[in-house]
């Protein structure tokens, strides 16, 4: 029985482990990082793990993939406390936190139904407004705020 517990999330030789993702946002993170289109890397998704910090958390393990900062910072919108563990030769060689970027382009959907971006083929652009640790997005077009609770990912 003990062995099974260990096997539930297996170790990787080289790659990235993204930890401390809020369980409810796992699929948003997958979508933002385009993991659903990757065909060659082995990936493990785990969710609904107990977490003191988040209540329930999710974990992503990806073999043979290392992210650029600019790429990974995009997930700050939905997983601001996420931690990256860079694994080489089964060892954690680096730990990284995500930073909330100043601009969000082509990721989020504006929550204003009357915004031009929801009616015509316009790339969404937001300026990030950090307010009491919450990430709110101000649409560069309609100037309305999309808050974290209403955040949807464009796909």
């Amino acid at each position: 029985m003990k062995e099974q517990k260990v096997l539930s999330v297996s170790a990787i030789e080289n790659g990235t482990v993204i930890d401390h993702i809020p369980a409810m946002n796992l699929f948003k993170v997958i979508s933002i990082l385009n993991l659903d289109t990757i065909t060659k890397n082995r990936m493990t998704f785990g969710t609904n793990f107990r977490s003191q910090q988040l209540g329930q958390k999710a974990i992503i393990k990806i073999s043979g993939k290392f992210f650029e900062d600019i790429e990974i910072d995009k997930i700050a919108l939905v997983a601001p406390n996420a931690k990256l563990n860079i694994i080489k030769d089964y060892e954690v060689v680096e730990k990284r936190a995500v930073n909330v970027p100043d601009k969000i382009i082509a990721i989020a959907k504006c929550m204003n139904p009357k915004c031009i971006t929801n009616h015509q083929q316009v790339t969404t652009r937001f300026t990030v407004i950090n307010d009491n640790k919450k990430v709110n997005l101000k649409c560069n077009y309609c100037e309305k705020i999309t808050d974290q609770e209403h955040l949807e990912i464009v796909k």
Partner: protein
Amino acid sequence: MKNRSLISIDDYTREEYLEVLEVAAEFEKKPVQDILKGMVVATLFFEPSTRTRLSFESAVNRLGGKIIGFTDAASSSTTKGESLKDTILTVSNYSDLIIMRHPLEGSARYASEVATVPVINAGDGANQHPTQCMLDLYSIQKTQGTLDNLTVSMVGDLKYGRTVHSLIMAMSHFNPTFKFISPDELKMPDEYKLFLDSKGIKYEEHIELGENISDSDIVYMTRVQRERFADPLEYEKVKNVYILNKEMLVGTKENMKILHPLPRVNEINEDVDDNSKAYYFPQALNGVFTRQAIIAKILGLK
């Protein structure tokens, strides 16, 4: 300002507001100036707005420019399914400046990114209408002799009224004191109050119109619209609370002026119209001078 679009009132700095107002005053002295000769201005009105369109067209005509365009989406190729991008790219080829009104919010910013000529936003849904705000500033400066240190009362629909929101942003450069007078349902949204707090600008909130205008330099009236209320009963309760009449002007300051973006329905009684404090019709005339100034500035002619 040359070749720069005007989409949102925050696109201009304090100095730029003052520059535009200075040029507007020149046009008030000499409204007919042939500086736009040989130029073509496109007025694209994807939703009808007679007042704004006529004001812009009057401004262009007095500058000697020619106008092309349409007055509502039904007479444009939008009905054939053309995207805004394609319309703007096409019209950019035919004109030196685009003046656009569109029902979707953010459409003007998008148009300015796509266009190869400058764009003036003549209203994008409930979002921005910067030339209205500029003419409000001009009217305030003209009647008060300054924009600095004034007490401005805003009355009516402060929740959805884009003109009052823009005016707050613009006036914030001039150390104003605001009095917000509205029913609870239509109070000034928190984001604007937080903005004022961050700038250290004083404001009060009131429910009663009555004596809260006695120390005001400007009383800015807006319409309380029935369709803003989820509960019709709530509308019935407040609809007659914010009607300004002649008696209410007793005891107000000598220099006080009443502004209104128009159209008015019943929120200013007609008995106010003959009072020297009523300024909403001259305010509309100021719109032509202000728009002349903005057009001239953007085209680099002033």
